[in-house]
């Protein structure tokens, strides 16, 4: 009975796992003939999980290992929305490419359940379990187009570097366990409060743990895999990685910063260095790209840097301002990226050259709506006012200012690299609107699912950019 109660308390997660099992059952019963059923099942389980999430109040600790606070809920909600969008985007594509649909959605739900574990984890073992559960299905998903060289390369690279990162992570956890004999966050926090008892084991363990999370968050200098994997994976999977994995990894980092990590200046410096490197490397790397997916990959590294400024502020302040700034930024970033990848999916139709920036020259004439939506996504990523991206940046800068002098330089660097970023984001806008039209695309009608996903995301970007009060209230009840 106890187990049942705990499972009910963790219902969003349980529902996603049930969805995963149901899809596998359907696939087993009617292999390859299930048509749209897996996608509908996935959407149903995600929808129910969302409904459960929104209809109950925060509180409790399922299994004593998972948090069910405002932060876990906000991130879970975001992850569920992202997954829903990815299901909607992916299904028509899978159908067109005649790829197995059931497995895809099952793997997606498995990965999603890992993400939900990661954002709730209050124990290092659960965190590790979540990260593995998140990653392993994604290795397969990244290589889902296994007959194309790009897809195989993406999957293989992601697997190798991901395995490497897991090694760091598990080694770090082992050292931390050695240092304090606990893996629960409460136990770790108790040791974090006692500087006199912290030895080399503890410090090395923390460093390795954070490196492992840094890999998943795509922060420099752990970013080398990002461009190739984002490029090679099929676009819905890339969207899931960019929005979902990032949100999960930053959820974990934020919880560690708020609940576990000691107040140490060395640690803060580490965060600041990684943040600065990410902002610089990501933005400079993106300046050179002409392929849209690679551009977004590099820009995702830059955004990891901006987010890390917020996490560093959270480490310093351990308060709701810093936490909400990261959460808001993640929401804005995830919505924008999902919309951008949905549009790229529509435009590229999985053909290499069509995702090159040059192929979009003068698109605004023949495709006004798509161009408008894409331009808006890039403006939001650039942080132009009236978009959610602007307010995200504003909140992160505010969090950095409240954290005192240590974050002065990162905040200034954030502003300066944002100017660089405007250079490549506006290049996309310029290509769409200012170049003469060279090719008129054939007339592929925008599939309904992509239209819905982008319309809703773009609307959300604008609404959040103009009227953020409701979301902020929901974050900080």
């Amino acid at each position, binding site marked *: 009975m106890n187990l049942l109660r705990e499972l009910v308390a963790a219902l969003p997660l349980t529902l996603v796992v049930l969805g995963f099992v149901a899809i596998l059952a359907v696939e087993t019963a009617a292999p390859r003939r299930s048509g749209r059923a897996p996608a509908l099942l996935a959407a149903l389980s995600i929808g129910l999980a969302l409904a459960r999430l929104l209809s109950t109040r925060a509180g409790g600790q399922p299994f004593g290992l998972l948090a069910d606070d405002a932060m876990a809920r906000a991130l879970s909600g975001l992850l569920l929305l992202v997954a829903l969008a990815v299901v909607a985007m992916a299904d028509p594509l899978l159908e067109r490419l005649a790829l197995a649909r059931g497995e895809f959605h099952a793997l997606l739900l498995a990965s999603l359940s890992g993400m939900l574990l990661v954002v709730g984890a209050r124990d290092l073992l659960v965190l590790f379990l979540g990260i593995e559960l998140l990653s392993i299905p994604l290795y397969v998903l990244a290589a889902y187009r296994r007959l194309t060289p790009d897809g195989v390369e993406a999957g293989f690279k992601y697997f190798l570097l991901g395995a490497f990162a897991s090694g760091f992570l598990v080694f770090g956890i082992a050292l931390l366990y050695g240092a304090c004999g606990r893996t629960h966050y409460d136990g770790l926090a108790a040791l974090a409060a006692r500087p006199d008892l912290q030895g080399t084991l503890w410090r090395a363990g923390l460093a390795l743990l954070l490196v492992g999370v840094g890999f998943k968050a795509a922060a420099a200098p752990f970013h080398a895999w990002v461009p190739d994997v984002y490029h090679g994976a099929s676009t819905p999977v890339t969207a899931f990685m960019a929005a979902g994995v990032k949100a999960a990894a930053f959820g974990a980092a934020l919880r560690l910063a708020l609940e576990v990590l000691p107040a140490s200046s060395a640690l803060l410096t580490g965060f600041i260095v990684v943040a600065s490197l990410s902002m610089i490397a990501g933005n400079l790397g993106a300046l050179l790209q002409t392929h849209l997916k690679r551009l977004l990959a590099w820009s995702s590294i830059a955004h990891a840097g901006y987010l890390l400024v917020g996490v560093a502020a959270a480490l310093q302040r351990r308060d709701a301002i810093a936490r909400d700034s990261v959460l808001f930024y993640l929401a804005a970033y995830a919505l924008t990226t999902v919309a951008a990848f949905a549009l790229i999916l529509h435009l590229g139709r999985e053909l290499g050259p069509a995702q090159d920036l040059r192929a979009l020259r003068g698109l605004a004439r023949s495709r006004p709506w798509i161009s408008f939506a894409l331009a808006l996504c890039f403006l939001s990523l650039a942080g*132009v006012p009236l978009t959610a991206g602007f307010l995200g940046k504003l909140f992160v800068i505010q969090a950095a200012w409240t954290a005192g002098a240590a974050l002065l330089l990162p905040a200034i660097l954030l502003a300066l690299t944002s100017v660089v970023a405007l250079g490549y984001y506006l290049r996309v806008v310029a290509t769409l609107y*200012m170049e003469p039209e060279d090719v008129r695309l054939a007339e592929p009608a925008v599939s309904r699912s992509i239209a819905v996903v982008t319309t809703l995301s773009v609307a959300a970007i604008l609404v959040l950019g103009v009227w953020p009060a409701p979301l902020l209230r929901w974050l900080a009840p």
Partner: protein
Amino acid sequence: MNDLLLAAVIGLPLAAALLLALLPRLPAEPARLAALLVAIATFLLSLPLLATDLRGAIGRELDLPWIAAWNVRLRLGVDGVSAPLVVLTTLLMPLVVLASYGHVHDRVRQHCVLLLAMEAGMVGVFAALDLVLFYVFFEMSLIPLYLLIGIYGGPRRTFAAIKFVLFTVAGSLLLLLAIVWIVQRTGSADFATLRRASFSTGEQGWLFAAFAAAFCVKVPLVPLHTWLPDAHVEAPTGGSVILAGVTLKMGTYGLLRFCLPLFPGAAVDAAPLLIALAVAGVLYGGLLAWAQDDLKKIIAYSSVSHLGFVVLGLFTMQSAAATGAVLQMVNHGISTGALFLLIGMIYERAHTRGLADFGGLARTMPRFAFCVIFATLSSIGLPGLNGFVGEFLILIGSWRDHPVATGLAAGGVLLGAIYMLGLVKTLLFGPVGHPKTPAWRDLNLRELVILAPLFALMLWIGVAPRSLLSRIEPAVDRMLEAPRLELPP
């Protein structure tokens, strides 16, 4: 009590822009007509704003909650400084739409959308009384202008557009950092509250630097001016008119509205530097203008020169000079707006802007010649026209405390007369330059209608400046209260 007039002046063009953007099937001409009517309606709506408080207080206030977690509010209002600039904006907009009949034949609807969106942003900049809101409007007007230059501009338009954006944003992100810092330090972004807040000398120093960086790029103050000629040369006529007429004033307006009253100590300390740069701009801009061959470049550099006067007037922190500076902002918008419109009109006929290509237009295009001479005389400050009043007040006001700077700036007036009259001479008189000159028709009724209101204003301000000055001066005095306490006796 909330006054909704300002909300209407911002909301009407914004709503119209959204509506036009959402109707992709609307044909070009109805869209343009709708935009024109909206722009005229906005202008008429904005006229009552001119009746500002004679003691310089901020009126027509609107105050609504926006981001409660942050204590950021939608707070609008105008006083004697901002009201004339708002009306200048709303006046130029219908003229620009009307002028677009001559040169915008492709993607007309989008052109109108961009113009109206920009109008909302620009009015917002002058009306915002909350720093965050101000920043939002400040940036909001940027992207439409970027697109306007980049889509409808000349051959090097993409380069000019991105240069313009990068320069401006590099400055304005520093402004953002400073604003966010102020909000977290004082817990408020409200202008009235912040005027009562006091910052330490060190804080004032860097806050002033960040604010001034954003505004001086926009003005543009030498040596941050290099984006301006590029942007002007590549921009379409409407873009140039808006750019010179309104967006440059956002910089000088920001200096007056925020830098002087909020950071008075730092402003007084920085005044010698800014005055030196302003005078350098007056002379250097004038010399550069003298050396140009492209009509638009001449006017662009003359803007650098004229805006230098404005900055000089503001940073002497002397009532008459600063009042003259505000009037000069309006004047520059009117005269330079008219000149850019005229250049656009001749470009539509000749498809060239090289000064050397022209000559003897006075004989074939008398109406055009009259208008060019009129606008030129206004621009160089002939007594009886608007430019004289502003320049005269600035020079008179600055003379006592800064005789050297004033003397040098007066040299700029002379320079202005030299290159502008040189332009008139080459363009209108002398031998016929272009073989096709006789084929160019003189200005038509539409073009005269565009110019008429500007010329009427030049005369009106020149003859009866009191009506404006009496409202500008008390508002300016309020802005100067704090810095004047800091001035050495």
